[in-house]
């Protein structure tokens, strides 16, 4: 029973080791300077994707055990902050975007066989579904850093389109 867990740990160490090597090489390169501490910590978080940077915040989707979770990392503290009410065990997030204040998170997720766009307000710990009008299936979302505009990529009438929405 312990072997898979040990393998996972070994794999994680090897990923972290490989990352450290790659980062050392990258440090010798031109304009890109790796943020080594943050990157090592991100590597230890396992499979992560769909990054969204805004000010002191990094939002991303962390995968594990067949499902995904939205995480919001406070870069100055190098630590995730709680997002009560956002993640559900039966939901699969596809895309996430955060504003500069870390107040709004826009998320596209699959839930109960459908794909939906939701807007999470961290100060209220509240989640609002946003319907596509006319109907469409969202795939990707971005919120402007000032938190005022949403751009949503969605499938509608057999084409990919972009809807824009202004938040009050």
């Amino acid at each position, binding site marked *: 029973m312990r072997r898979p867990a040990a393998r996972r740990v070994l794999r994680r160490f090897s990923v972290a080791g490989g990352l450290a090597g*790659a980062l050392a090489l990258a440090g010798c390169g031109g304009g*890109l300077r790796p943020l080594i501490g943050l990157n090592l910590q991100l590597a230890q978080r396992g499979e992560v994707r769909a*990054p969204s940077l805004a000010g002191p915040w990094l939002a991303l989707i962390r995968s594990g055990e067949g499902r995904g979770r939205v995480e919001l990392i406070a870069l100055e503290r190098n630590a995730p902050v709680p997002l009560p009410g956002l993640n559900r065990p039966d939901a699969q997030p596809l895309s996430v975007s955060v504003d500069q204040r870390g107040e709004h998170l826009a998320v596209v997720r699959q839930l109960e066989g459908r794909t939906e766009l939701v807007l999470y307000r961290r100060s209220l710990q509240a989640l609002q579904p946003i319907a596509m009008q006319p109907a469409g299936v969202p795939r990707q979302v971005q919120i402007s850093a000032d938190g005022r505009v949403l751009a949503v990529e969605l499938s509608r009438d057999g084409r990919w389109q972009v809807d824009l929405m202004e938040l009050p």
Partner: protein
Amino acid sequence: MRRRSPLRLLGALPLLLAIASCAAPWGLRRQPSTPLGLGQESRQDPALSGDGRLLASVVERGGRNTVLLQERRSGTVLPLRHLRGRQPHSSPSLSWNGRYLALLVQQGPQRLAVVEDRATGQLHPLPLPGGREPERLSLAPDARQLALQLVEGGQTRVELYDLRGLLEPDLPPGQSLSNPAPPGVILGGAAVRHLERWR
């Protein structure tokens, strides 16, 4: 039976209004897509500038995915200098005022992250060591950091990079530099004149 005075009800009005505004705090205003002026063509990968003024998206041009930069409200297309011939483009990301457009382009057999500086006209290629290829990116609104998603050892992961040695910050109007650029980044002079021209 005691009657409530109208004055007391008036006094409660601000509270009622506050409750009402809390009950519907997220009224959305949808912008029709027609101002974008591109008819029925397919459009993907939207990215907004930090102030929401500009929209970058990927459209098909001559069978190749090409990034298009537009003013969000009017649909006016803004010129990009360096990206022709580097398709397919993907994953655009804009800085706060839209000075910088970061995206993935094709360079030979490889995907490459680049940043176009619309103020100076420079293109900054950002190759990853070890021949690694990025899949997606996100540029911080102030252009101080870049997040890259890549696959290595069969695992998708995210790495962060510091761009302060390469790019001037692109800050919201009125915001001062709390963390000055490291040596090698020159602020002012020609850069300021460029900024005045393109804004």
